[in-house]
């Protein structure tokens, strides 16, 4: 069981899966870092974006990797509108209400997709779906390698936006000191909505990276959402590097525990880490004290 010919590919595949997890978690942590709420609609938004990518390929013939450049801005706008015109006004500035509103939106989105598209599982058929690169000792699937690379491009772009643009500075100011930022003339409602939009754009890109190698159905996003919560908690709520490193760790843990415990119990490893981190170190590896 422990021979390196099995172990190394398992770890490598875990890292590749973990990168996409990290991207989903990145959106979640960004929203948490600024709005201080957990977006329970994150998984449902991922599912919605996967359906968008599916139909972009299926009816319009656009490759998912190209479609990402259209779907990401569309979902940015959708996320912006959702926060600005629904979540913000509906929750009256109370954290508890925000939790419930995002939960309500998750229920609405997931079940609306179920109502329209039924529970059927769909897949798309891209030419590179089963291509792989031979490393001599193992094979790595091309779609997952592309995903891995894309995640770091997105993380870099996000880092540039946050560090070097006025919008990024405004977002960081609101995250640190909301009232102070407001007094300095920053439109907090706008910044909240931009942040929510950016988080939603992250899941949209993640969806486009997933669609070539993953099935699409109305509950597809749920498989990722608890994993993403775990990553965010492990890496530290609101920490971007934490989300990246946490994502990779969780990817490896999942593939190793599937190897040793079998598919059905593979996820248990993730939840146990999740509960343990929450109980022992809720601020995570890189987060500030909760």
């Amino acid at each position, binding site marked *: 069981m422990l021979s390196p010919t099995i172990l190394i590919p398992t770890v490598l595949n875990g890292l590749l899966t973990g990168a996409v997890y990290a991207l989903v978690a990145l959106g979640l942590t960004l929203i948490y870092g600024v709005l201080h709420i957990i977006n329970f609609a994150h998984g449902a938004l991922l599912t919605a974006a996967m359906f968008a990518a599916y139909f972009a390929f299926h009816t319009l013939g656009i490759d998912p990797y190209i479609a990402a450049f259209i779907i990401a801005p569309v979902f940015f706008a959708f996320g912006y509108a959702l926060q600005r015109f629904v979540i913000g006004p*509906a929750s009256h500035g109370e954290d508890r209400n925000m939790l419930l509103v995002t939960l309500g939106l998750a229920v609405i989105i997931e079940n609306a997709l179920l109502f329209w598209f039924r529970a059927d599982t769909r897949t798309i058929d891209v030419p590179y779906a089963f291509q792989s690169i031979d490393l001599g000792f193992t094979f790595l699937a091309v779609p997952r390698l592309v995903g891995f690379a894309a995640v770091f491009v997105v993380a870099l772009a996000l880092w540039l936006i946050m560090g070097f643009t006025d919008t990024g500075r405004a977002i960081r100011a609101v995250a640190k000191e909301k009232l102070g930022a407001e007094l300095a003339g920053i439109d907090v409602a706008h910044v909240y909505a931009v942040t929510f939009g950016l988080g939603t754009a992250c899941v949209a890109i993640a969806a486009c990276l997933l669609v070539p190698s993953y099935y699409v159905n109305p509950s597809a996003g749920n498989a990722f959402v608890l994993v993403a*919560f775990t990553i965010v908690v492990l890496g530290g709520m609101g920490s971007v590097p934490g989300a990246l490193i946490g994502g990779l760790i969780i990817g490896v843990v999942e593939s190793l525990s599937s190897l040793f415990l079998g598919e*059905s119990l593979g996820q248990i490893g993730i939840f146990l880490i999740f509960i343990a981190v929450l109980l022992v170190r809720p601020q995570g590896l890189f987060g500030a004290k909760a």
Partner: protein
Amino acid sequence: MKAFAPIAVVIALLAAVPLIVHSNVTLNFLVVALMIALAGQGWNILGGYGGQYSFGHAAFFGTGAYVTAILQVRYGVNAWLAFGLGIAASAALGALIGGLTFRSGLRGSYFALVTLAFAEVLRIVASVAPITGAGVGTLIKLDLRAEALQFESRAMFYWVILALVAVALIITHLIERSRFGAWLIAVRENEDAAMALGVDATAVKLAAMTISGAITAAAGCFYVQYFLFVDSGIAYGTWISIEALLTPIIGGAGTVFGPLLGALVVKALGEGALMVVTGEAPGLDLVVFGCVLVLVIWFSPRGLIGVGAELRKRFRRAGTRPVAQEARHG
């Protein structure tokens, strides 16, 4: 005794329903609505009065259901006793989860997440463990005798669940008027301030979670006796976590009658939505639940029970526009 009059009136009116309505479809609808109300009453103690929003009350519903079923099927325990033990097991689970989470100081989002995770872990374990029947689930043998807590007439089941709801209403009312209830509300409003005044917040929340788990478990135990089947998706599925929090929030969290009102309204709307559409409409009732949840939080944060007060407030504000209030809300 006068304080219990509203509860007595509501229960008496509901108890008379099977004497007038004989349709099995309607009675079945009411039984399920009351069962969800009971699950919501459990959530209401911790979430409504204590302000701790659990997103994983399925953990209690499912444990109650499984313990009741497994004790009867595998160990031949009497159904009534199994029912009681199911409730006790969930109360213990509530104390355990509460002890772990509240001692680590988890609040708000973190508490919601960790309860969600506990329910998921239980669901996965139940879907593979042999004792729960794994993927196949557990069936209870049909045995239509009162000793086995099974009845031929739906009306009897209806009165049983109504009695459970009545007990939960009385418990909620007693808590609301007790010192413990005042502590719980103080923790909800401002935990740090409550602690500064000498309230042992951890102990108060722990007790609330234990009671809360026990009440929601009773709904799970009832589910098993009524449908005679349970599997991991039913017992620990997200559906029950969502419905258990939906009903008190929509009806009015932190009120005695909120969960009951919420359950009846929500279930009626769900049925109504399914009637409007011809043919299959999977998920449509849940879309309606989600919309009602968002709209209630948006326009009447105190739930349907608070609609009247909310309207009066808006009306008054529109008339006089006091400056201080504008500043706070605007």
